[in-house]
């Protein structure tokens, strides 16, 4: 692994709650959840910048909506 840098992350109570829930659900440390989120955000951002679109389809496949990402 490449060298790692440490930073302090300030989260609100609800944000920390979500982080803890995701950490439990995904069987990941909180750091690993943040790193996964960063990877996904970058991947989506690059593909959208290239002109791609991101869609979410409902489980029954009856609805499909474009997901707008900042």
């Amino acid at each position, binding site marked *: 692994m*490449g060298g790692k840098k440490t930073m302090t992350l300030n989260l609100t109570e609800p944000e920390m709650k979500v982080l803890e829930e995701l950490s439990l659900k995904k069987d*990941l440390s909180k750091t690993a959840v943040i790193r996964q989120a960063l990877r996904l955000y*970058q*991947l989506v951002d690059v593909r959208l910048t290239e002109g791609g679109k991101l869609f979410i389809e409902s489980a029954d496949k009856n609805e499909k909506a474009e997901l707008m990402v900042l």
Partner: protein
Amino acid sequence: MNGDISKVWLVDKKTGGLVEASLYDGITEAHLKDVEKSWMPKLRSELQRLRATGRPHPQSSHWNWRDKVEHMRGLLAYRGFAVVHEGHTQGLMLVKTTHPCRLPIQRGKPLVYVDYLETAPWNQRELVMQPQFGGIGLVMLAAAITLSREEGFAGRIGLHSLPQAVKFYENCGMTNLGSDPSKQGLPYFEMTPEQVAAFLEK
């Protein structure tokens, strides 16, 4: 790309002995140039020979590694690996770290997804009568497992197998979840942390 290099072992198919090789955490320009200078001419000549004999060609023979590496350049979600021995690239692998598991017992948890894995043409049984080096697939799977553990994914890995490689992944102890219509019907395989432990003990 992290640029780490670690020592691995391949099987010299002529002698049956082990030979030392280097596993690169990252696919460099040198690896890609080697693919273009060494892999492609060998691949072309062997494919010509196979066509003449009517034998099936390797299903990865159309892969363009430069395009694949360019596509993932700078993206944190992808990682590349290369195995080098005797100054030549013996195998390449691209993995993705943003895939969820599909097996019911670990569904939704993250795994390292092996997007592409290929050995040099002179190491492929489908191409040459006497492959030069073996064990590259095992080295690459072990690298994917190590990455999965480093990332906190407990060693979980997954991949879609080309039909010619199905037996190999089954022999590695992976679970075959069957044909995946979203991936041209290719069979999807997954390895649980327990299967990883058994694989590494072999």
